[in-house]
């Protein structure tokens, strides 16, 4: 075990451990959406910024492997500026309708917004239209683009569990969506394991009406 200091507080971690995981395990919360323990960092949500002692610019904690003597600051003005900005951007593309959302009260966005003191209802930016097209493409899984934050946890979880992913990204830029990959037909079958629904931080995935409910 080696020792690193986070916000001045010493914590003991395994050498080479992921900084984000180490902080979370030590009870220091860093906002994050896309990280999956044990998988290479996607670093796409741009929320888990921290400042490392020797570097002026914040870096995503999920991309840092801890080294002895690492000095980490999780609450500098530069870190908070980027985190708030990223959250406001995500909220501007997210339909805020919490009371009717199945993820209400366990939604990661709600928790991060509370932590960063960013109001949900009054985002600093005008809301963007969600990417067009009906949610999902007719497969068993429906991904709602107006709620999806494109963290990619569902895609990577499916690939990790089954060797290939039933869900995939499509489109690009602001029109990027996660969609059910139906073109390949029976080659990639959904096993209804429900793992993608489980890992979605914002409750954007559900089974299509008529598809087998994993609980029934």
């Amino acid at each position: 075990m080696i020792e690193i200091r986070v916000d001045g507080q010493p914590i003991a971690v395994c050498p080479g451990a992921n900084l984000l995981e180490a902080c979370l395990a030590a009870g220091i919360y860093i906002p994050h959406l896309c990280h999956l323990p044990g998988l290479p960092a996607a670093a796409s949500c741009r929320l888990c910024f921290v400042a490392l002692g020797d570097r002026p610019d914040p870096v995503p904690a999920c991309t840092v492997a801890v080294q002895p003597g690492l000095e980490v600051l999780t609450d500098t003005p530069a870190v908070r500026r980027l985190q708030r900005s990223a959250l406001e951007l995500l909220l501007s593309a997210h339909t805020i309708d919490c009371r009717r959302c199945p993820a209400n009260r366990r939604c990661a966005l709600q928790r991060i917004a509370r932590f960063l003191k960013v109001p949900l209802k009054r985002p600093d930016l005008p809301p963007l239209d969600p990417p067009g097209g009906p949610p999902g493409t007719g497969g068993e899984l429906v991904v709602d683009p107006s709620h999806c934050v494109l963290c990619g946890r569902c895609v990577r979880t499916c690939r990790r569990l089954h060797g290939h992913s039933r869900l995939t990204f499509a489109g690009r830029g602001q029109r990027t969506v996660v969609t059910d990959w139906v073109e390949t037909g029976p080659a990639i079958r959904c096993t209804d394991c429900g793992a993608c629904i489980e890992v979605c931080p914002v409750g954007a995935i559900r089974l299509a009406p008529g598809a087998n409910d994993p609980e029934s």
Partner: protein
Amino acid sequence: MTEAPSIRTLDRLRAAAQAACRARRPEGQPVVRVGLATCGIAAGALDTAEAFRKAIAEAGIDARVETTGCRGHCYAEPLVVIDHPASGFPPILYPEVTPGKAGMLTRFFLGEGDPRFEHMLGATVANELIPSVLEFGRFNREQRLVMDRCGRLDPQSIDDYLADGGYGALARVLAGSPQAVVAAVGAAGLRGRGGAGFPTGRKWELAAAGSAPLRYVVCNADEGDPGAYMDRTLIESNPHQLLEGLAICAYAVGACQAIIYVRAEYPLAVKTLESAIAAAEARGLLGPEVLGTAFAIQVSLFQGSGAFVCGEETALLRSVAGFRGTPTHRPPYPAQKGLGGHPTVIDNVKTLATIPVIVERGAEAFRAVGTPDSPGTAIFSVVGDVVHPGLVEIPMGVTLRELIFDICGGVPGKKRFKAVQIGGPSGGCLPADLLDTPVDFDALSEAGAMMGSGGLVVMDEHTCMVDVARYFLEFTRNESCGKCTFCRLGTCHMLAILERICRGQGRMEDLERLERLARDVRDGSLCGLGRTAPNPVLTTLRYFRDEYEAHVVDQRCPGLSCRPLTAFYIDLEKCARGCDACVGCCPVDAVFTTRTRKKGIDQSLCVKCGECMVACPPEYDAVRRISPAHLAPVIERPPAAEAKT
């Protein structure tokens, strides 16, 4: 002293190539060289070449037509060089040779020995008979290290390149150790020409370190900046120089596989490269046992499908591996852990094409050109409002003023220079005050722009800087891969604000919000493209804030270019009675005839296309453009009944 096997093999190949060239080109036979790169073809050079062939055959003249690559003088395409030794004249460069001119030149110059002075640009070499192009700034201020052979050789012929001394650097390198090459490139101080300017020697060192079983070299020819075409021209005009550089790089870092990532939108470049690779493999210059040594290099082409983000090295590697072209976090850098987890050197076309020059001339000679921190030359594609656009290779450290005004002829039409955009969508706009900035990596970054891949767009006084920022941001918004939050959503919000300002609906707090967003996208994005995407906005806000404020406060577009903020009207003092030029060209019938039989524009119908301004004969020059729109004088349309009488 016995020579190394690689040099002996090359000597043999070169002798054969020279013999082949001599056989193809009888001594004293006149030759017409037509530049047939994409730029020439777009200007009609295929028709010109065909016209020459036909005219020569019809006149029964003993002459041949050869194709070459691009000389970089886009303003003069189709460009033709006629070498007619028997006439006593040196080789002569002719600009804008249409098929008609081709017939005329064949008859007069090839047939009768009259070079038609009024049509020529000048002789290609200094001589006593006629002025040489070397007397023009556009020619003599350039220093062609990398593009030296572009436009001189037939890109389809490996014999031309070999006979001209090509592949000599590769043979020399193969006679020494790989470490010596890495050391030479490091000593030359070459910095990556793809944009960021990372020292190439250090990149090679990183990749060559350790005992990886497999290494790759990737040539990045995914040139996506609007207005930049240096890589395409280099490939189309002299593909073997790139292949030679690629082979040297592979030898230096210990790779045996090389991939050229070229855009599928460059069909001629792809075709040229395919045939060049096949020709080099047939001569033993690529493939197993290069030049009779144990070094083996397999070169393959990968055609990218035209995503701008695939020019970013990590996204490029994902694309080569068959995934979505999205960037990944660095470190690890590709030089440590790239394709399939193996060390991968990714270099731009210009970087690799510079390598043979460094080996040939030595690191010291290379360092003598350019500035201490940015040695060598820079290749720019100068486009926009400039008299002599095209490709220019200049030593680093030349100022923007020299480049734009002395070399490229300045702004046409007596208009004032307003700004220059350097580095494409990742670069920035610099105003006239900064024209004395030297062109090198560090000075440009300091000014807020960047070298980028070398696109340089010159803009005159009738350009709206807000609209320029909007244009580039629209490009990056459309090309964002969508992976990370800042680039995906931040560019959308920035674009929305810019569009609002261009419509005249901006507010002062928009400028603040725009600047804040731009800084956050710059600091927070995952890859280099996202981090540099706000540069056009940040630099225009920095140097042209008054234009933003004019849009917001006065509803005025100083460049008279944002349609909602401008209006066209007809100056009745200048309008001629009875001229109907503007009436005929208006697509929406907004132009009417007044009681005095002069013309007026109905502002409620006008779509501000500007056709009337183009149509109005220059002797009247009566159509005016004004901003803000409400300043346009109101000219009443006479009642319909009266107009008919």
